[in-house]
């Protein structure tokens, strides 16, 4: 699939996403920074809509997003401050969710490169630690997996033991 999303973890604190779009990067940059446009696509799992979208696009300016679930009205908010803005190629900002799922702030970086009218996006989120990153990636998802590499290794190496 030409535009398939790639998600990788090159270090133990980061999640990196790479995705191509059939559009010039000016438009992708606009879609990432204009509230009316963000509300159309930055939604998450089905059933959530963005009810607050504020963007003060300047170094030191703040952004704020709040999503609400259609069925039970439950809300989820996040926000941060821009530390770098180079239109239309780069945005760096902090990220923090209202509900403190994780310690500290994460840093989000968006890099856009264009070739022949197509844009490649590399979006990186860097968390304070591996535990925080792994916790964040699982939280917010229904269910989720409650196991870890360590536990798997432990189970496999303790021969004859029954885990419950």
């Amino acid at each position, binding site marked *: 699939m030409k535009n398939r999303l790639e998600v990788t973890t090159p270090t133990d604190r980061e999640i990196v996403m790479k995705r191509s*779009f*059939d559009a010039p990067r000016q438009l992708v940059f606009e879609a990432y920074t204009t509230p009316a446009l963000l509300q159309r696509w930055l939604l*998450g799992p089905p059933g959530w809509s963005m009810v607050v979208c504020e963007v003060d696009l300047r170094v030191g300016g703040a952004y704020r997003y709040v999503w609400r679930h259609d069925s039970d009205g439950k809300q989820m908010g996040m926000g941060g401050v821009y530390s770098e803005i180079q239109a239309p190629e780069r945005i760096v900002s902090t990220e923090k969710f209202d509900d403190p799922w994780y310690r500290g702030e994460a840093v989000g970086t968006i890099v856009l490169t264009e070739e022949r009218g197509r844009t490649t996006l590399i979006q990186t989120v860097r968390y304070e630690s591996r535990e925080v990153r792994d916790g964040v*990636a699982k939280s917010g*998802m*229904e269910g989720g*997996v409650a196991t870890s590499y360590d536990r798997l290794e432990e189970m496999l190496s303790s*021969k004859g033991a029954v*885990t419950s």
Partner: protein
Amino acid sequence: MRGAQELSRTGTRNSAARLDNNTSRLYNHIVMFTDPLNATFAALADPTRRAILARLASGEASVTELAEPFDMSQPAISKHLKVLESAGLISRGQEAQRRPRRLEPEPLAEATLWLEQYRQLWEANYQRLDALLEEMKVAKKKKQRKGRSR
């Protein structure tokens, strides 16, 4: 079965009744211990199977529900489910008619599964962005034509 007896001796002391009910889980663990890494990694090596696991992490589902997102026949999906069951990654529920599959989280390598879920979440966002960008391109063209015709 010898394997099951060894497990009972060294591990939990199950009553006979509970051993029957847990037999399927024990069989799965036996598979894990005899060829653990190969079974799990072989099961996870296929993208369809990873997507099935990611779906089951949100709750149990029937074969029909699992087959829905894939352009694949039910027998083909069932083959994948058998591989996942042999590796101890999923199990069957007890509902007589539906036999929904549910995730067995212990053997899973965390990194693979949550990355898949994260990817699916963001892929949905980016597909909406694709559609929006198409609209924006059309709007931009219209605006440029208007500008030229003045």
